[in-house]
């Protein structure tokens, strides 16, 4: 009798309330729509995550690699109870955040990948993720880890997260911290902002399609390449051409 292995390998998602979209006003004055995306939207996200695997700055490579794997796992039904939220500015992808519901009481924050920097885009989307766990689903706490100094500053310091070192996080490695309902309530109105409902025009624009990030993180430009090209093997520049050309001439 044939065995349908897929049925064994595929986790069964539990029903959780969907995340209601909201809009946050950025420092530029532009609105950013934060909304939940479906499994079917994942192929539209992956091409914008992939380039960041090669971005060796601020741990983008590590975070992008993990997000790529989590999104792919979600798309191919290998990740239980995962959700994905995106931030979009004028339809353009600005951030991806994801997490997982461990059970009715405990949430597991996975990653925050900001594709537009300098405007708290990642921080706003992380806040939305915490809001999803605590306010929408009604969980008691969310386990959080940071994989970059920026993440540590944004989550552990800004929210004053509680240590949960004794509880392993699913991402492994670094010690766990927890956002509790009490900490979330404290951050309400200061770190947790935005408004609902999102106007039909804004929401339609966001849902019409995920447009590429307008200003994704790029490799640091090698401003100094031009000078390196005139260095000799000892690392000393040869700018005195035409005047002897020799050092200590």
């Amino acid at each position: 009798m044939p065995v349908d292995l897929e049925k064994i390998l595929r986790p069964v998602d539990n029903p959780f309330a969907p995340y209601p979209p909201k809009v946050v006003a950025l420092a530029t004055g532009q609105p950013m729509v934060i909304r939940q995306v479906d499994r079917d939207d994942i192929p539209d996200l992956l091409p914008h995550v992939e380039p960041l695997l090669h971005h060796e700055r601020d741990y983008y490579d590590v975070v992008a690699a993990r997000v790529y794997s989590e999104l792919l796992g979600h798309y191919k039904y290998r990740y239980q109870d995962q959700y994905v939220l995106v931030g979009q500015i004028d339809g353009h992808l600005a951030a991806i955040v994801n997490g997982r519901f461990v059970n009715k009481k405990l949430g597991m924050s996975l990653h925050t990948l900001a594709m537009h920097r300098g405007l708290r885009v990642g921080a706003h989307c992380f806040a939305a993720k915490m809001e999803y766990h605590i306010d929408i689903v009604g969980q008691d706490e969310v386990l959080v880890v940071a994989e970059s100094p920026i993440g540590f500053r944004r989550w552990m310091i800004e929210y004053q997260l509680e240590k949960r070192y004794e509880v392993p996080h699913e991402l492994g490695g670094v010690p766990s911290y927890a956002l509790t309902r009490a900490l979330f309530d404290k951050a309400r109105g200061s770190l947790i902002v935005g408004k609902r409902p999102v106007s039909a025009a804004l929401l339609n624009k966001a849902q019409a399609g995920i447009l590429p990030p307008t200003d994704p993180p790029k490799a640091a430009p090698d401003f100094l390449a031009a000078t390196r090209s005139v260095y000799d093997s000892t690392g000393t520049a040869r700018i005195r051409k035409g005047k002897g050309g020799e050092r200590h001439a």
Partner: protein
Amino acid sequence: MREVYAVGIGITSFTRLEYPLVEIAGYASILALKDAGLDQVDQVYLANMAAARLNHQTAVASALVDHLNLQPAGAATIENGPASGAAAIKEGFQAIASGMADTVMVTGAERMSEVNQLEATDVVASLSHPLSEAIYGVTLPSLAGMFTRLYMEKYGVTRRHLALVAIKNHANALMNPFAHVQTAISLEGILDGPDAPTNNPIIADPLHFFDVCPVSDGGACVILASAEVAKKLKKPLIRLAGVGQATDTHAVHERENPTDLLAVRLAARKAYEMAGIKPADVDVAELHDAFTILEIAESEEVGFFKKGEGHLALEQGETKIGGKIPINTSGGLKAKGHPVGATGVGQAHEIVTQLRGAGFKRQVKNAKVGLTLNFGGFGNNVVCLVFAKE
């Protein structure tokens, strides 16, 4: 005294530069030497505030000379806190004016991102009074916060005025490819909108995130020369016409009136006297807006506006490009960035650029006289420079 000219300029982007400090300084220097058409100078001054702590390196001027193969030029590192850059230009001016040198390369460089931001703030705070300020945890943002609060109470400056400085300088930085912060901001986003308190959180009350300059890396260079050399180089003749420096008490609380920036006033007065001009003759200025309030206060102390009226002029758009006296066309420290030792030289770079008419989208029309104000400590050591196009 002999006349002194700025004959070459060079700059790196003010941003996070992942290269050794000497390479950053070297890059700006090579560009400036190339701009001037020189391959040797008599003297090198390297402005830097904290390489010993930030980069574990001292005697950076010697390293730079070797790096660029400029031996046997004289070389010295100038450390004068955030005013290191303009202080080094002043040294260069003196060397040429006195006849000791015909050509001087003044380079400013700082690489702050080698340490984390908390440590960078701590390093900068070491310029405060060790026994009456630093020991109590006073940092530059906290001093600026107290200064701002007092200024608001005395003169009616509001958070809106501070935000207007930030918005103007961010807009200017968008026209400067070397600027660190390339983001337009709006009143709604940082002050009026419902989410503004989160986008623009308090740093040191009443100063918020967008009132404070970023921590930057960067290098800038100005080549100074005697009139005889300058006239041979076929560059626009930009004369360093006025140099003024003044000091004030180390600890801010010892000042009779802490909202008076006496050293700024005196340094500017000296520079005007030497240049033989009045504040109204200045067409463009780079002021030291490490905090937004400083642009307002300094614009008054250098004589552009009456004391207590700088914010009103700002409100009227008089400090915008196209206004009566455009201030911080480069984006200022607020948005161009603040690699501490390079800042004063970067200001001179911008003014020479403007006087050459090479400011492109941010060019001030018919700019003939420009001023820089480099503010050390919390106003205890200030250098003011006046450049004039001939």
